[in-house]
Structures are given as C-alpha cells and as structure tokens.
C-alpha cells in the first residue's frame, strides 16, 4: 500500500473523522470496519454496504470507519462506534474487552454455512517442492500479517501446534509483516519468507483480479472443506457484525433487519443470523490467547498478581535484608582491613621498639666497657708487657752469649701463653660488645653468676672478690634467659657494688645470694658501701641518671628493662645489717624436665 492513492487516503482519514463529527446532528450510524487488507481496499470493498444500509435506514447517515485491530478497540472504549465489523477472532477478543455482541455473521459466496466461512491458506512459491505439509515448515521462515490476525495467523498457529510445531518455541521462524496482507505475498514472492499465511480465498481473489500471476504461489497442506477456495485449516465462522455495548437495542434491530435484507455484494458475501462461535472460543482457549490469555499464566504469576503488594513488601524486606547484609559484610571487611592495618602497624612498631631496645642494650654494654676501659687497658697491657719482656730478655741473653735452651723454652712458652690470654680477653670483650639478636636458653643460674664473676675479674685488675651463696635446690635452679643479657645485668650490679666499696676503701667481698621465692629465682647482690642517698634512690632506675662522672646513666635502667623483658622484677634496698645496699632481681624458674631437655640441646 505504498501507492500515492494510499497515502492520500491515509491523510484523508482524520479529515473524514472530523467531517463525521460535524454532521453528527444528522444522527449518524458509525460502523467500525477492520481494514485487514488496508484502508484503500476496505473503502472499495465496503462502500456499497454503507450506501445500501443508508437506503434501508431512513433519516440515518451511515459512516464506515476503517480501522486496524488496536484502533477498533480504542474507538469502542471511547464510545465512538455504534457497530463494528470484524473477523471472528477479533470479535471474541472485543466481546471480552468491550462487551460488544454480534447481531449477524457474514456468509461468503459459495459458503452455505455461516459457521464455516473463515479459513487460512499457507502459500509457498510453486518451485518450493520441499514444503508440502505443515510439518515441512519446521525451521522455515513463515510470514504472517500480525499475531492478532485471526484468519491471517491464529488459525494456522493452532494448526501448527496440532502438527507439533510451536512458533512460540521457535520451531517455526515467524515474520510479521503488519497489514495489509499483500505484504505477506510480497515477502513470499521475494523469498524473504519460505511460506506465508493468507486468509482463505485471498489468493484466488488476487489471481482473479490479475494482481498475482496464477500459479506462482500455491497452497500447501490443502484440506477438503466446504470452502470453494483452497485452505490449509478448518473453517471458522464468518465475520461478525456486532453492536457496541452502548448501542440502543432499537437501532441494533433496525440495522440487523437492514443487513439481513441486503443482497449479496460484489464478492457474493451476504449477512446471516449470528453463527455459533464455539469453534473460535475453543481455538482461543487452545492457544491461550484473548479471553483465555490468563491460562498462560502459571499459578505463580496469578498469585503474584493477586498478592503483589505483599510480594513487593516481601521483596522490599528481602532487598533491605540483602542491603543490610551487604552493608554488614562491607563493614566487616572494612573493619578487618582496618584491623589488619592496625596489626601491621603494631608489628612494625614492635619491631622498631625491639630494635631500639637492642640498640639501647648494646649501648649499655658499650657503656659498661667504657666505664671499665681503664682497667681493661691495664688488663690487656699485662700480657703484652710480659711478652715484650720475654722477647727482649731473649735478645739480651743472645747478645751476652748466655742464651740457654731451657731459658729459650721457658720464654717461648710464656710468650705463647700470654698471647693466648690477651686474645681471650679480646674475644670476651668482642662477644660482649657485639650486636646480636635476642635468644632464650635454659641456664643454671649459679653458673651464670660464676661466669659473670669471672668476666668481672677478667676486666678489673685487683677486682673485688665475689662470694656466691647458692641456696637453690636441685630441681629449682634453671631459668630460661638470654645468658648474655643476664650476664650484663650481673656485671652492672657487680660494677656498681665495687664502685660503692671503692669509695669507702672496703675490702669485704661482694655477696651474691641465690634463693627461691615463690616460683622465681631471686638473685641478690650486696655491697658494703655507704648505701644509697634518698635522692639517688628515687631516680635509681631512670635512664640517663648517674652519680658517676664518666657514666652514661644507662646501666640500671637497662638492667631493669632486661629483667622485665624476662618477666622478672628488680629492686634496690638498704642492706641489713648496714651499711651497704642490696640490689635484687627475680627470674621465673623453669621446670626441671624442661631444663634437662634444654640442656641436652
């Protein structure tokens, strides 16, 4: 319908409606007609009907309003139509939607029975030998005007389903061309579709009119019916002439009487009493469309429709719950991230702190060495001086020709011994001053004290005598410590005790007492000095507090730190009986079993 005339009518149609509204005063009868073949064809087809009806309805002006499927329903709802003429399928739908009721059924020429008028023909190009039955359409392209078209689609749809092919499941590829139906023919002829669905008799009509070369298209799956045309489907009742819901019954009766008195038109169609539309309802029910579209819906969807507010509420609750869960999850993840970040930060700080503390301990050890440097130098000088003396003595004897073999041996042995002694002192200092990682070993506490006392004597010429009073029982004498650190603590305490006694020229030994207190080993170091001044006592364990001109003031503060790092404690108190001071610290004892296995290592 792309001819200039069609365009003209299409533009004219709204103008005609306006005109119709203008002459309404003449009490017009408005009849909607389904323009299934296009507006132009419809005008031509139905123009004589309007004239004949007007003749039989005095004082009435009959208007034919050509419309498509959707347009007719809209016009009915707007109460713009008094009657409609449409196909059986469309009628059934409109009946359900708008309450129209049929007053007459069209009977085609050659049809005796108004109940068997409308059918469909599936056409293919003649050369398509592969399509002979409806089953052959499987996987093929099938053109039709519209899913809402009755003779143009729905009838064949039902047949296809009965043949085991459901277009809805894609077993046949449908192409909807929209009205007019001539487009379907075009699609088939051009090969855009393998087959097309036509209303029965359209093919024959077009061939007769010379529009279509006869034999170019042929109908497949032909059934024998009462139809004069070839059809691929059963026949259904003819078009319906129906009154709108609001049409006065008198007008409906007048129109019905006029219709029934009409002679067959140019195509041989006439109007008869309303036919039984049962077959149409059955078809719709089978296809689950039109009034039966509700059957398609599952129980779920109808339940959903009925209870949608509840469903929406439930959905909202679920969504809210989901959102809340997501939110909580997000929070948890964020907190976890924050926590792990905080943990990392803490580990980093701990590492820094530990590094700092090791640095401090190292500094403190160096500071002890510094404080003992004078005596240390003296200590190293002794073996060196002895070695020098022996060497020069040998030279002198040699020069005086008095070098005996026994003298040479004596000197050489002494030199070797003294050099070893010097190396030993140096190794001890180096080990003590070296930076090192933290360790924990199970040690006998008395052994640690003896080693520290030995180190003290090694570092200080004429150093103090250190007396050990060991009151530890056999099963409770082991501690799990860093031996070097504990040695450092002991050395500090010995050095302090010695300094305190040097100040007052006391020659009494420094007393070290070991005893068990609860689950700890208490190590007390007692000197016989003048004791601590109260103002000193208060700051004793503070870093950088010192009463010694050459001291760094790190000794006791580091000692306390070391002892506390070993889960022990440290205190100073006046000796009883005085004078003097007791420094004691405690270390947790370890079980004898652990100590034994520790020592095996």
């Amino acid at each position, binding site marked *: 319908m792309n001819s200039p005339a069609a365009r003209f009518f299409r533009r004219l149609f709204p103008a005609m409606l306006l005109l119709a509204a203008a002459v309404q005063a003449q009490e017009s009868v408005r009849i909607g007609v389904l323009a299934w073949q296009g507006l132009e064809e419809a005008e031509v087809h139905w123009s004589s009907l309007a004239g004949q009806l007007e003749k039989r309805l005095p004082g009435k002006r009959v208007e034919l309003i050509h419309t498509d499927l959707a347009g007719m329903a809209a016009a009915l709802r707007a109460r713009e139509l008094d009657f409609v003429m449409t196909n059986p399928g469309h009628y059934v739908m409109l009946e359900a939607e708008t309450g129209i009721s049929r007053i007459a059924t069209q009977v085609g020429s050659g049809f005796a029975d108004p109940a068997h008028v409308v059918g469909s023909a599936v056409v293919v190009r003649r050369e398509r030998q592969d399509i002979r039955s409806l089953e052959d359409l499987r996987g093929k392209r099938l053109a039709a005007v519209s899913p809402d078209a009755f003779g143009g689609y729905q009838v064949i749809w039902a047949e296809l389903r009965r043949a085991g092919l459901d277009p809805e499941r894609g077993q046949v590829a449908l192409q909807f061309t929209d009205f007019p139906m001539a487009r379907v023919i075009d699609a088939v002829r051009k090969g855009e579709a393998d087959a097309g669905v036509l209303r029965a008799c359209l093919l024959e009509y077009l061939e007769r009119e010379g529009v279509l070369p006869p034999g170019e298209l042929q109908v497949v799956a032909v059934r024998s019916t009462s139809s004069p045309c070839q059809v691929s489907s059963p026949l259904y009742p003819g078009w319906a002439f129906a009154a709108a819901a609001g049409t006065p019954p008198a007008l409906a009766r007048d129109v019905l009487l006029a219709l029934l008195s009409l002679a067959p038109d140019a195509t041989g169609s006439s109007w008869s009493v309303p036919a039984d539309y049962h077959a149409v309802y059955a078809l719709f029910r089978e296809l689950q469309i039109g009034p039966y579209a509700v059957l398609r819906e599952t129980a779920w969807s109808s339940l959903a429709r009925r209870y949608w507010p509840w469903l929406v509420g439930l959905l909202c609750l679920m969504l809210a719950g989901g959102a809340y869960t997501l939110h909580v999850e997000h929070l948890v993840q964020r907190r976890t991230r924050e926590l792990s970040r905080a943990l990392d930060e803490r580990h980093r700080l701990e590492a820094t702190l530990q590094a700092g503390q090791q640095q401090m301990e190292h500094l403190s050890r160096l500071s002890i060495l510094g404080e003992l440097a004078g005596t240390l130098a003296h200590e190293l*000088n*002794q073996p060196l001086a*002895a070695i020098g003396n*022996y060497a020069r*003595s*040998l030279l*002198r004897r040699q020069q*005086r020709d008095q070098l005996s073999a026994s003298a040479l041996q004596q*000197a050489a042995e*002494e030199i070797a011994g003294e050099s070893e002694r010097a190396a030993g002192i140096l190794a001890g200092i180096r080990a003590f001053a070296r930076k090192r990682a933290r360790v924990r070993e199970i040690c006998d506490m008395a052994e640690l004290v003896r080693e520290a006392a030995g180190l003290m004597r090694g570092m200080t010429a004429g150093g103090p005598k250190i007396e050990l009073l060991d009151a530890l029982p056999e099963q409770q004498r082991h501690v799990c410590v860093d031996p070097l650190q504990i040695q450092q603590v002991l050395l500090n305490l010995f050095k302090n005790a010695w300094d305190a006694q040097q100040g007052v020229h006391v020659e009494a030994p420094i007393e070290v007492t070991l005893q068990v207190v609860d689950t700890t080993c208490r190590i007390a170091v007692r000197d016989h000095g003048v004791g601590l001044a109260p103002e000193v006592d208060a700051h004793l364990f503070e870093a950088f507090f010192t009463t010694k001109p050459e001291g760094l003031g790190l000794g006791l503060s580091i000692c306390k730190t070391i002892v506390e790092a070993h889960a022990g404690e440290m205190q100073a108190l006046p000796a009883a009986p005085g004078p003097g001071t007791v420094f004691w610290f405690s270390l947790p004892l370890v079980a004898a079993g652990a100590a034994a296995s520790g020592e095996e290592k």
Partner: protein
Amino acid sequence: MAGKDVPVIHVVDDEAPFRRSLLFLLESMGWTAVGHESAEAFMQAAPAFPAGGGCLVLDIRMPRLSGLELQRRLQAGGSPFPIIFMTGHGDVELAVQAMKAGAIDFLQKPFKDQLFLDTVERAVHISCERYLETRRHQEAQQVLERLSVREREVARLLAQGLANKEVARLLKISDNTVHVHRQHVMEKTGTGSAAELARLILRADPGGLD
C-alpha cells in the same frame, strides 16, 4: 747464687706471668731476683737486706695490702730496701704519694726494659750506699755503747769543742777526773781528737751534739 755480697732484687706483683717476665729479664742481666705474689707474702718472707745491696720492685695496686701500705710498713720497720713502684695508667696520684714517702722512682706500665734495668741498677747502688751508711752508724753506736754514762757525757761535751776545765765546771767534777775520763773515751773509741770524736757521735746519732 754467688756469695753473700751479691745484690738481690725483690719483685712484688700479683700478676704472676708479668712478675715471672720481670724476673726472667733481671736474670738475663745477671741479677739475682726473687718474686713475691703479694705484699703479705713479702712481709712473711721478711728477707734480710743483702750485704751486696738490692731493691724492691713493687706494684702499687694489689688486692688487700697495696704497694703503698707495704712501703709504709717497711719504713716503719726501718727497712733499708729502696723501693721502685710500678704503676698502671691513671695512677700518677698514687705514684706522687709514693715518691713523697721516699720511693726511689716509679715506672708506668708498660715500660721499656732498659729504663727498668737502669732504675734497678740505680736503686741497688743507692742501697749499697745506704747499707754502708747504716753499717757506719751501727758501728759508731756500738763503739759509743762501750762508754759508761759519765764517759758518754764527757765525750759529748768534748765533741762540742769544750776544754777540760769547762767540762769539769759544767759537771761539777775535778779537772783531773775529766782528764781520766777523756783518756778512757779516747782509748775506747779509738779516736785521737775531739773532732774525730764529734764525727763518731754524729754518725751514731745525727742529733747527738744538739
């Protein structure tokens, strides 16, 4: 060991290896040397001062009895041993104290062997002189002890350069008595003049003529 007149060097140091090295060094130069591990050990040994002289090499810092303390005790007992102190680093103050108390010298460890040997030699020399001095003093005392109280009185006045008459007047005795005492004093002390007598008395007691 050679005879009685050989000088003896005593070394007191608690550091055994070093002490032994010093003995070895001294022996290398032909000295007779004896080591002591502590001041107490030396006191206990209480060696007599050798006729050939000798000296004491003393470590200033030792446990218990220090070098300074030993010096004090020896001087109190009138020991003739000249003392050489050995000091460590930073013991200068102690060394000064020791010098004031009459030490011959102090050697700061570590010291050159030559310096040590020279110092020892000097000390031994001093000890010999001191020994002779002491001998003379002791002999003078022994000589003077032979006199009676009255004779000692007369001798002191005569040594101060007084004439017989003045002595008789001061002691309120006769001139003749003084003469007899004088003859006895001269015989017993073996002196020929008042000047010789004065030297003898001063040798026995530097303040004996005051």
